[in-house]
Each structure stands twice: as structure tokens, then as C-alpha cells.
């Protein structure tokens, strides 16, 4: 005879009404949670964006295996190794192609303001494959003439209005490392924490710009394998065959090598994680304050409910539901604002900061933990609700 369970269990939504009938307090609570959420989104976004940005170029490389010097610590300080090693690699039957690459930071002079700034410069033989076809197209042929470079139009604006001038059809000439060069075309690669801008050129031009580089020395070697080859097995073979003056990585391993540098050898990961933790703590304090004063203000009402025969469990549930609702109501605007700020960061810094589902979930979990932990602490105040005191 009794009605179905959901209808039997349904009660006055006390937690919800407590929140919405005190709009000022709700607004403060949501602002606090939202602030904490945004802080976490930004800090974690910067951190992951930095790690992601540090491998912007790595991801574009047309390679299955990568050769670097064992002295190389990261892409901002690439050590050289003999180019011969890359020739030795071609002896392996699974290797179908190699590309020797010079990789260094040079000083670029802004053609408009004449100030200089360091730019990441990659030198390669225009006939070799450097990047995946989507990144470079067939523009490499423009580099066959000496003194020509391809400029990354996603470089930060401090390098000058190169992209705009090029699109207007102007001839852009400027100075790199004190030598005159001409911009032959534009590519879209992307800035990173390690490099604010990128430039591609032929090895010949690269050696002219940096005459101290020994001609037989390169900083990066790309290896392409025949389809179906086992990259890990080839890498293992090459490691055994080649002298110890080179290190072999898979493309993914090379990316991780770079990320690990930023994560481990710098304080960046720690700083941003600490920043996110600060947001978490601030949020905890705010939510706890709000829920605690809410419980204190309504103590006589809670005591009345106890006197009416409601079990303490129900009242704890009300506080828990308040925490739950605050978490949801605070997370949504934080997510939306985070999304907007990410767009601004992408536009302002060129950093590839994306609202990915993993970070969305991490921050959601943090906000839930924050609200539920605060609710749990605020519940202790409910012990003060003594129904015997209300008469």
C-alpha cells in the first residue's frame, strides 16, 4: 500500500532552502569556492601548459627514434655530438631515413624596434624531412638559398610584426646573430617556455650564423624506421652498436625526457602545485567559515528538529548536502571562468593551455574534497544543538 520509495523518501529540501534563502551568504560562499577553483585551474593549467609547451616542437618532429648527446639536459641547452653517428645508424636494415639537425638559441633583431631577443633556431638540410608534413608543407625548398629563414608566426610579438609584413607582401630582412637574413616564409609551430619564438633555416645558413659550430657536429638526429618496425628493438640494437657519446630515445621518450627536465630540475612544477594547494586551503577556510557560521546561526532550529524527533543523522545530512550543493554550484562558474582565462592565456602567451577532462576532474575532486571536509568539520558544531535547552 505504501507509495514507491522515491516518493516516500522525498523530504523538504532543507539544505537547498537554507542556502538560497540566505543569498548574501551563498554569494560569499560561491565566490570563495569559485576563487579557489579558478586558482587551481590556473595553477594546474600553467603547470601542465608549461610541460606541454616545452614539447611543442618535439611533437612535430618527423621521427620514430631520436639521437641526442648524453650531455644534453634539455632543449634549452642541447649539446653536440658527431654527425657520423647518424650515418652509422643507416646501417641498420630497419632505418629508412635520417635527418641531422642543428639546434641552438640565436639573437634575433626585431626588424621594427631593433631590439634583440633570443630565438630557437633549427638548421636542417632542406631536402631532409624535419617535421611532419602538416607543420612544414613544402616550404623547406625556400631555404635552399643561403641566408633565408622560415619564421614561426606563432612566436611572441616581441620578435616584430614579421607575420603581418609577410602577409602584406613586404620583404622582411633582419639580423640574426649579427648576420643579415631574409624571411622566406612562415610556419606555424608554437612558442614554449623554453623558446619564445622559433626559426628554421638550412644547415648551411645555420653554420654561417654560428661559425664556431664544428661542421661535423649536430645537436639532434632524427631516425625514421620502415613501417612495421619495432622501434624499441631498433633503439636497443643501436644503443649496443653505437659508442656512448650518443643517447637514443623513442619520440615519446624524447618528449618525456624534456618534460622530466622541467618537472624535476626546475622548481616550476613545485611552485605551480603549491599555488594550486594554496587555492585548495583558501577554499577550505572559506567554506568552513561559511558552513560553521551557518550551523551556529541555525543552532536553535536544529535543536528544534532534534526535539521534534529528527535523528542527529538527518541534521548531519543537511550539512553534508549543503557542502555538496556548494561544491556543484561553485564548480560550474569556476570551470567556465577557467575556460575563458585559458583562452586569454593562449592568446596572451601562446602557451598551449587547454581545459582537458583530466584537469577538470582533478579540480572537481579537489572542490568536492574541500567542501565535504569543511562540512565534516562544521558538523562538530551540531553537537552543541541540545534540544533540552530550547524550552
Amino acid at each position, binding site marked *: *500500500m*505504501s*507509495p514507491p520509495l522515491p*516518493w*516516500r523518501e*522525498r*523530504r*523538504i529540501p*532543507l539544505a537547498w*532552502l*537554507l542556502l538560497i*534563502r*540566505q543569498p548574501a551568504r551563498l554569494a560569499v560562499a560561491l565566490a570563495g569556492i569559485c576563487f579557489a577553483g579558478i586558482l587551481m585551474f590556473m595553477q594546474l593549467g600553467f603547470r601542465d601548459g608549461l610541460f606541454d609547451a616545452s614539447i611543442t616542437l618535439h611533437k612535430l618532429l618527423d621521427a620514430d627514434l631520436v639521437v641526442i648527446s648524453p650531455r644534453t639536459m634539455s632543449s634549452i641547452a642541447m649539446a653536440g655530438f658527431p654527425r657520423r653517428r647518424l650515418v652509422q645508424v643507416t646501417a641498420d636494415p630497419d632505418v629508412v631515413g635520417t635527418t641531422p639537425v642543428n639546434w641552438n638559441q640565436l639573437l634575433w633583431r626585431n626588424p621594427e624596434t631593433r631590439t634583440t631577443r633570443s630565438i630557437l633556431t633549427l638548421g636542417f638540410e632542406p631536402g631532409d624531412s624535419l617535421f611532419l608534413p602538416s607543420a612544414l608543407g613544402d616550404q623547406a625548398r625556400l631555404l635552399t638559398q643561403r641566408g633565408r629563414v622560415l619564421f614561426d608566426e606563432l612566436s611572441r610579438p616581441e620578435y616584430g610584426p614579421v607575420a603581418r609584413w609577410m602577409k602584406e607582401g613586404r620583404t622582411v630582412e633582419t639580423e640574426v646573430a649579427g648576420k643579415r637574413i631574409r624571411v622566406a616564409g612562415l610556419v606555424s609551430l608554437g612558442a614554449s617556455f623554453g623558446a619564445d619564438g622559433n626559426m628554421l633555416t638550412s644547415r648551411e645558413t645555420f653554420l654561417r650564423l654560428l661559425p664556431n659550430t664544428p661542421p661535423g657536429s649536430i645537436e639532434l638526429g632524427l631516425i625514421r624506421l620502415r613501417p612495421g618496425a619495432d622501434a624499441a628493438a631498433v633503439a636497443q640494437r643501436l644503443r649496443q652498436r653505437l659508442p656512448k657519446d650518443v643517447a637514443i630515445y623513442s619520440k615519446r621518450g624524447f618528449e618525456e625526457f624534456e618534460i622530466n627536465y622541467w618537472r624535476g630540475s626546475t622548481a616550476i612544477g613545485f611552485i605551480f602545485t603549491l599555488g594550486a594547494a594554496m587555492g585548495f586551503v583558501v577554499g577550505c577556510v572559506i567554506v568552513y567559515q561559511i558552513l560553521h557560521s551557518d550551523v551556529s546561526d*541555525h543552532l*536553535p*532550529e536544529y535543536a*528544534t*528538529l*532534534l*526535539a*521534534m*524527533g*529528527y*535523528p*542527529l543523522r538527518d541534521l548531519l545530512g543537511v550539512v553534508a548536502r549543503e557542502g555538496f550543493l556548494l561544491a556543484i554550484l561553485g564548480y560550474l562558474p569556476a570551470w567556465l571562468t577557467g575556460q575563458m582565462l585559458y583562452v586569454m592565456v593562449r592568446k596572451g602567451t601562446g602557451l598551449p593551455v587547454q581545459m582537458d577532462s583530466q584537469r577538470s576532474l582533478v579540480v572537481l575532486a579537489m572542490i568536492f574534497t574541500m567542501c565535504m571536509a569543511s562540512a565534516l568539520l562544521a558538523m562538530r558544531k551540531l553537537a552543541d544543538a541540545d*534540544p*533540552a535547552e*530550547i*524550552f
Partner: protein
Amino acid sequence: MPISMPMATLSDATPAVAVQGLNHWYGRGATRRQVLQAVDLRIQPGEVVLLTGPSGCGKTTLLTLVGALRQVMEGSVRVLDQELLGSGRGDRQRIRRQIGMIFQGHNLLRCLTAEQNVQMGSDLLPGLSYRARRDLAREWLRAVGLEDHMGKLPHDLSGGQKQRVAIARALAAEPRLLLADEPTAALDRRTGRDVVLLLQSLAREQGCAVLMVTHDPRILDVADRLVQMEDGRLWSAEPALVG
């Protein structure tokens, strides 16, 4: 609507409240003070009993003990056929579900409308759908004459209206015992009397026993029986008046 209880069954039913040899103390050690001394009290179902006496004489303490809001120290307190001496927290909470309480202040939940406040009472009834409990709340508000104020927050109601909402809330849980502590204290003369008369008639209809603490001489005539308390002792229970 609640079903009225046939009057014939009232006299031979077990009493709603049976207090025997109740002693109670506050404080401990040197400051220990006895507030109730050898109190005996019986209230039959449907009976309206008024408890009067000077302030500080222990009336409210007796009320909290009978209302299962406080642990009984010594003596027997049987409420609705359940012994409260030695009862646990959970037992007392379950017994309280069958006891309606009306307070000096109205003690309504500020964030709930009149209707929702009353439903907090009917929500205690087991096995009813949300809609049934809400309809019950509306009926009780109608019974106390507030059908036009259902959607109002306590903030927007007058003192008498708030006290009537509190009565509706107490009765909506279909209690078999109603405890009231100076329900007219915050009300003017006429509203105070109206509220108590309403309380009396609704409780009678339900066959619900009432124990009301009051200082208000204007409402003494609604009682079936008057009980006086002084210095923690009940004395001179006057012969029952015909209610």
C-alpha cells in the same frame, strides 16, 4: 484529517504520562541543587493539564524530562507506555516523534515557508508519499486558519500567526502527547487566548494529551486539571474541571 478518538476509551486506556517519585538535580558536588522532589503526575489520553507555579520552580525541567529531552536521573517516567528511566539517546529520539512540542518562542525554521514548516512535522510520519504529507500540512494550516498564508516565510507572519504555525507543525506529526511551554508568552491577550483554545480543541479532536506550562491566568479555564508546582514539588492537584 485526524480521526477523533472516542471519549469512552480514554478513561480506561493506559495513561499518556505516568510520573512516579521523580527526583532531579542540577550541578554537581557542592553546587548540586535539587530541582524536582518526589514528583508524581498522571495524565490520561485526551486530558488537558495546566502546570503553573513561580518561575524557577522546576516546571520546565519537568517538561523536558517528560518530553524525553533530558536523561531521567531517579524515579519512573512512563510516557506513552515507555519507560524513560535508563533510556538511551536513540530511544528518546524515537519517543519524541510521538510527542508534539510548542515552545515559548515559536522556533520555526526561518528559511522555510509556513507550509514547509508544518511539513517538517508531517514528514515524520512513516509510509506517506511526499504529496500526502504536503496535503496533510496544508490541512493543518487550514485548521489553524492560515490557509491564506501558506507560502509566507515566518519573517512575514505576526506573532500569533507564527505560534499557530507552530501548533500546526506540532499536530501534523499526529502526536499522542503535546507539551507546551508558555505558548502565550509572546502574544497579546486575545491572540493568546485564541491560540490556546485552538490548541485545546485540536488536541481533543485527536485524543491527544496536553501538558502546558503557563503563567497566564487568562487561560486557566481551558484546563481539565490544574497542577501547581513550588520548589520542585507538585502539590494540590485541584479536582478536575469539566472542559
